[in-house]
């Protein structure tokens, strides 16, 4: 069963991502979505991995998404875990940094549930960790 960590400080956005993932027909056999409402919470939840995919926002207070990606790439457990950035158009520069730090793809907010599903399953079904920025 795929296990996904969502890091996002907006509850509406978290709920949206979760329901998009859970309503995907490919999730019919089960999917485990874990939510972190801040960078801190993500730091706490990451050691409880492994996760098959981490979906993270960039612009968060204190520990931001870039710091989180850098941490994920440094950690033994998550070095290979795919990371998907969800951010707005205006954070173009920050998003580019995220990809340089080792994120595997990004979606620009707002996005449709379908776009999220197809992007997420690119990592969940196929081979892991093609560290190729997508976009």
């Amino acid at each position: 069963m795929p296990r996904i960590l969502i890091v996002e400080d907006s509850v509406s956005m978290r709920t949206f991502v979760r329901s998009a993932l859970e309503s995907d027909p490919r999730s019919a056999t089960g999917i485990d979505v874990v939510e972190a409402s801040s960078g801190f919470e993500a730091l706490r939840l990451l050691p409880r991995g492994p996760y098959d995919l981490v979906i993270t926002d960039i612009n968060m207070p204190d520990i931001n998404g870039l710091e989180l990606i850098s941490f994920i790439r440094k950690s033994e457990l998550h070095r290979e875990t795919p990371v998907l950035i969800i951010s707005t158009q205006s954070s173009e520069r920050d998003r580019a940094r995220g990809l340089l730090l080792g994120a595997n793809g990004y979606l620009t907010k707002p996005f449709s549930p379908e776009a999220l599903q197809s992007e997420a399953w690119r990592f969940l079904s196929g081979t892991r960790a093609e560290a190729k920025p997508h976009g």
Partner: protein
Amino acid sequence: MAELSDKAREEFFSEAQEIIETLSRNLLSLDASIKSGASDPSLINEAFRAVHTLKGLSGLFGAVRLGALSHRLEDVLDDLRLGRIEFGQDVLDVLFAAVEAYTRILQAEKANSDDELDVEGLFTELERIGAGAAEHQSPVAEYELDPGLLAVLTEYEEHRLRANIDLQMQLYRLRVQFDLSTIDKALEEIKERAKRHGEIITYLPTGEATSADTIELDLLMASRDDLATLVGSLGADNVVIEEIPRRARRSVGAGTMPPRHQTSIGRADSVALQRELDKGGLETTSSLRSLTQTVRVDIRKLDHLMNIVGELAIVRSAFGRMAEKLRGEGQRKLAAELLRMHRNFDRRLGEMQDGILEVRMVPLGQVFDRLARVVRQISREVGKEIRLVITGAETEIDKLIVEELSDPLMHMIRNAIDHGIELGQRRVEVGKPLAGTIALNAFQKGNHVMIEVEDDGRGIDLAGLTEKAISLGKLTRNEASELSRDEVLALIFLPGLSTRELVDDVSGRGVGMDVVKTNIGKLGGVIDVHSETGIGTKMTITLPITLAIVSALMIQAGKHTLAIPLSSVSEAIAFDEAAVRMVDGREVITLRGQTLPLCRLDRLLNLEAAPDSMSRRRFVVVAALGQRRLGLVVDFLYGQEDIVIKPLGKSLADVRGFAGATELGDQRVGLVLDAASLIEEVLAGVEAPRTLERRHG
């Protein structure tokens, strides 16, 4: 876009509302900090983050208008936080206008209305501000900073780093070990202490952990203080502080690389800010993060829980009666056991009720924040300088009441600024301070919350008010001559009396104090007015703390059991038929030297008399609301009970005098008297015949 559930939409609206309120609070803090000569850059960043989040959400939920405004506003805030445009009162005005626009748009979106909302003017203003943005210098990397650290800086953090270097701050790296379970708290503490010395720019997990339960962070900090001072203040077993050396080839300073665009949140103010920080003067404002630690609950769910508590209360009463019955039948042991259970049940139920009520309570500060914005806006519109003094913002009241309060309060404040506070020149002439003061005071008094709106303006023109009432045919000149001062003041609540002929931008929106009074009345509250010519006016609103559950006095009138909310009962005394006098064709008694008008409930409500009503001792329940009192003559007092009031159906909605219905312990339905409207009608002499004797239950 896929279909979104109503629940998701509601959650979105509720989050959007919170974000807008946070934004508004930030702007108010910014306003205050600019006035005091220092501005806190983190406030602008928070405002930016709020709008940024809202933009993302709006797109997601198809809220096009919210998205369009957020998009434009975000651009401006981005320029502001990165120091590309100058920050001042004019910019703040436009930002406040944006908050207003947000509120209007959100209401329209909630109502699914496609009405045109005039925001073009605002958009033009935002573009005008944005056009002033100057391109800024590229990033600085003039310190021997770890490239890994530089790589994770967001654009904003980079800007803060630059700004601090421009201020000749020294950079430090704090390597800190945190316990994962307590990292939030520990980091808050470090941040708090670090504030005295400078600013923490970023936090980077190093990825080197000593154990699975700990995490190591590198904190990049800028400070004017030297290493020894920092070590003394921030040093600990888990903290290692290092100074980050400057690269030799680069000298950083005002001379070599002046900022291209001097902004008001640039050097001068940051120095001032630093001074404030040194004094420990600026408070930290709540971050958006704290919002995510709360659970949002639809108030209807709490209503539902409260209804269940109400039903349980009925079960509890049945227990009590059962115990009494058993005792009557001589089953003492069983009765005692049942009574013990009853008491235990009673206590727990009380705790549960308190718990649910507590969840419904929100501080009045929520609505006061909105009002602060209104005051600011109106005072600029009408060119009067206004000082708003708020006390008791922490006073808590039922969420539903708070929601309904903002319109009446806003109206009262508009009235005070428009009609109460004199123009500046006039104020100076009469020896008052140039700035008018409006005080908004809230406090709890017993089971009530009192809110006062007080101004130091010219007071209500009594003669003018009377004339207007006469010209509108509300009373004759003769009647007018007999009115007491309080009665004249009360005229302001008559329809048409407080509405100006001239419709203006501020108060003349066709809503008078009569509407304010009606709306407050719907919440079970009353409004009183005091005014002194030349000194000012004070309006006092008295409200129940909650609408959900009511302690009531259960009485009998005729054959009916009725409930009177205890919040409006001041006392109950034995009725002495012989003590009744007639004054102005109305029955009164004297209670402790004061005249108390009477109202015989069975007659008023046309109830069939109880068979033994003449022989039995009767009672007077003294209902009091604000300054007004009325003695209700009733046939029997059953005592106090907590009841859940349920609304009357549509067919009975126009019957005045009743607040609703409640279930009585024995499965019957009883009516709940609305003391406010009873007092109102009886004292006004409008005792319209009514029919209680229709089927109910």
